[in-house]
Every structure is written in C-alpha cells, then in structure tokens.
C-alpha cells in the first residue's frame, strides 16, 4: 500500500480574502470578491470584471531583495508559502534541505512583469529590459523562488495544464512524497490581471463580458455566459502522514485519490473524459460514490461545459445524489490557483462541518444537481471531491478525506 499523504498547512490569497481565515469567513458568508478591474483601465476591453486580491502589499511580506525580481503572482505565492509553513508549524531551516520539495502549477507565468519588460523593449530598447526577465515571467518561477527562499532542494517542478494544473501539481507532490520526500510545498498562485494577460485570456472566448458583478459568472445557470478571471490561489503543505504524525502536526486531511484524463479530439465521436477522471480518483481513494459528502465543481459557466460536468456528476452520483458547490463564483476562475483554493475550502469544510455556497446563480432545471446555494450548508464532511478542467481538454479530480479515516 502506498504511503498516505496529508495536508498540514494552508496559505491563501483569494479575491474575497487575503489569508486563510479571511477567505474562509468571506466564503461562508457568501461574500464575493468580483468587481471592476482596478489594476488597469479595462474600459477599452470587452471584459471588465475580475476577482482581484485585496490589500496585498508585497513589501509588507517580502525582503527588498525579492521585490525587483518578482511578478505579482510570485510575491503572493511566496507570502502564501510562508503562511502555509507557519500554519503547518514547519521551520524549513530545521529539516534536511533535500527532504523538502516544491511542486506548484502555473497557467501563464508572470505576465505583468513580462509586459512591463516588453514595453521597455519596444519603447526604450533592449538595454532597458531587466535581467530578471530571464526567469521572472517563467512558469516554474514560483516553485523556484519558494525553493530558494526556504532552502528546499528536494524534487521540485511545475505543472502547466491551465485550471487542472492545480490538482495535477498536488498529485505530483503526492508522488514525490510516496517516493521518499518528506514534505512538498504545493498548490498554485496565478495573477495576470494586466492588459497583456487580459488579451491572452480573451482569446479563449470564455470570458464573461457582463458588467454586473452578481450576474457575470453564472455556472449551471441558464444565463451562463463565460467566467470572470481572478487572481490568487492557495499554497498547501503536503507531508508523509507518518512523518506528520510523529511530529504531532495538525492534519487538515488526506490527499486520498487522484484521477486525470484528456478529452478526445473534437469530432472523434467519443465522449468527454471528466466522468472517467472522477471514477479513477474515487477508485484510487477506494471510496464509493455514496461516501462522498460534497463535490467542488469546476464550474466553467460555458453552457456546453456545464452540461458535460453536470452529466459526469450525475452519471457517477445519481440525480441530485451529492451536494455540489462552486465557491469560485465569489472569486472568479483563478486558473492554476483555482483548484488549490477549492482544496483548501474542502479541507476547511471538513474542519467546520460546513459546505460553502455557490452564489448569484439560478440553477438551470436541465442539470440534476443538488447545488448548495447562497447559504452554507451544515453537514458532516468526511470525503470531498474537487474537480478542475483545463482549456484544451484537461480533466482532473482529487479526493480529499478527513484525517484519521482509512480507506473503506
């Protein structure tokens, strides 16, 4: 049997709350962080709403050496990693450096940093481009900077599969722990609310152009019209369960199962892969559908994608067979940061016996889902399923299980 891998620390930077406590209380209150873009003037763009992380001042959290060389996403990732390590009660300086790794996800890299340097390139010339552009934009930069800051030299890397990457990274972290690494910092933080990032995101054709914050991102609603982009995410500390127990760590829960599939080529006639990803994850966790207490949906808010997800959930769990929620209706879609934030929410739901709500939507009757709407629902949560899909066909599913509960 493979070693159990548990989550012992959380660090959150979310549009509806900076910090785990702030995020969780806002999420349970149904408090949304979606509003008009403030990081640049969006008036010339078709999409104008975003979930921006409030009140993050990098200089308050990071040494001056790191400021000139980091994009906003990296600054938030570094701060969230600090908070997660502190939450886990881990001082990295006390552990062997090769026993700790960093595996995060990324979807686009440091767009804002890159945009500023490209602007200097065309307006001022190549001599004005920062030497730090060589890595500050790069997908792996959050993993690299977290590794350097905390002296973590064990197996490390980055996974790039859009929104699904947030789960794929956690699965890769679990693999590394099962191969013998004691602790891996995982999760993801993305932030590309800048004109260049915005234009890149618009090419997906999936951004909502609504200007009403409570009508813009409506998954599973008849008025679904695409998503609102957000920034932020969550960093998780993953540890070998035995090692965590030995040091007396508080355990949020276990990363009990993982499944990933890729959709078939369009026009192939074969069905989408999400259902199979769910089944693989449940089998990996040795969990029956009836044991799952809540599903955190991917919630694309694109009608075809909502239908595919609703059908996959009902195929596995039955019609209205399991509570389904999408607290990301309060943050927007955070790309690689979205699923780690959902994992954090799932683990906090276990702690508090409270399923956070989906806000702003009127569920379409065509979907046979038991959506948790507007108010949190009190319910024991022992096992949760988190779904995430990435643009281009990625489907990933992770089962998290409450601490101290073995496979059936």
């Amino acid at each position, binding site marked *: 049997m493979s070693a159990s891998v548990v989550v012992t620390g959380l660090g959150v930077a979310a549009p509806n709350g900076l910090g785990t406590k702030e995020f969780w209380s806002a999420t349970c209150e149904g408090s949304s962080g979606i509003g008009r873009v403030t990081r640049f003037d969006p008036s010339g763009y078709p999409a104008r709403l975003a979930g921006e992380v409030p009140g993050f001042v990098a200089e308050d959290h990071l*040494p*001056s*050496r*790191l*400021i*000139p*060389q980091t994009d906003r996403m990296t600054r938030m990732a570094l701060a969230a990693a600090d908070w997660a390590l502190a939450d886990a009660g881990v001082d990295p300086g006390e552990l062997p450096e090769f026993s700790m790794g960093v595996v995060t996800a990324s979807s686009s890299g440091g767009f804002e940093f890159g945009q500023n340097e490209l602007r200097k390139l065309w307006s001022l010339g190549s*001599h*004005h481009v*920062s*030497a*730090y552009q*060589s890595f500050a934009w790069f997908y792996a930069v959050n993993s690299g900077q977290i590794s350097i800051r905390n002296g973590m030299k064990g197996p490390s890397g980055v996974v790039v599969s859009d929104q699904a990457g947030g789960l794929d990274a956690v699965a890769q972290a679990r693999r590394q722990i099962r191969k013998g690494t004691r602790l891996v910092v995982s999760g993801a933080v993305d932030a590309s609310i800048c004109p260049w990032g915005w234009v890149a995101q618009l090419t997906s054709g999936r951004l909502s152009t609504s200007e009403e914050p409570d009508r813009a991102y409506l998954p599973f609603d008849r008025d679904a019209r695409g998503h609102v982009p957000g920034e932020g995410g969550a960093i998780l500390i993953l540890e070998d369960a035995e090692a965590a127990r030995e040091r007396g760590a508080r355990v949020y829960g276990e990363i009990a199962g993982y499944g990933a599939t890729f959709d078939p080529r369009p026009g192939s006639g074969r069905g989408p892969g999400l259902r199979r990803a769910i089944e693989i994850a449940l089998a990996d966790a040795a969990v029956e559908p009836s044991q799952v207490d809540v599903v955190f949906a991917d919630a694309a808010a694109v009608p075809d994608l909502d239908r595919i997800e609703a059908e996959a959930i009902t195929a596995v769990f039955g019609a209205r067979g399991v509570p389904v929620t999408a607290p990301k209706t309060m943050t927007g879609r955070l790309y690689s940061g979205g699923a780690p934030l959902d994992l954090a929410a799932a683990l906090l739901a276990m702690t508090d016996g409270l399923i956070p709500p989906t806000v702003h939507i009127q569920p379409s009757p065509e979907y046979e889902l038991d959506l948790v709407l507007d108010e949190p629902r009190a319910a024991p949560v022992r096992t949760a399923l988190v779904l995430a899909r990435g643009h281009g066909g990625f489907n990933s599913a992770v089962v998290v299980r409450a601490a101290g509960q073995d496979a059936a």
Partner: protein
Amino acid sequence: MATEAFTLDDLKAILLEAAGADEAVDLDGDILDTEFEALGYESLALLETGGRIERTYQISLDDDALTGAVTPRALIDVVNAQLSAATSA
C-alpha cells in the same frame, strides 16, 4: 582627475533599485572591499546593476570587466575608467 564621477553612494542607490538589499547586510557599513557575493548579490543582480549603470551613465561596460569586479571598489573603478574614457574621447 579631481572628483570621482561615480561614487559608492551612486552605486548603492543603483544596487538598491536593481536588487534591493539583503536583510543581514548593512550597506551603510564599510563595504568598499567586501565581495558582492558576501553582500548578498549574485551574478544576475550584478548583471541587472551593470545594465542600470550603463543606461544611467550612457556607457558600455565590458562583460569581463563587469564579472571581474567582485567588490564595490573594483566596480566603481571600472565605471570611472569608462566615464573618463568617454569624456576624453
């Protein structure tokens, strides 16, 4: 040459802008002959610093001269040599 065109204070200002300062290091201390590495600046930080000096003073620093200048005093000398060469040219 009467006055140095490029001083330690100039260098410190550019270092701070380019790369910040290590929390364990006092840049206001006697650092002229302390190696950059000990001051917490790795090669990339010095590359960025060199680039900013070139832009600010409109000079061109030779790559070898830049990498060979491992202390603030050595870098200041390299920059001043370039500046006086530019003036006399």
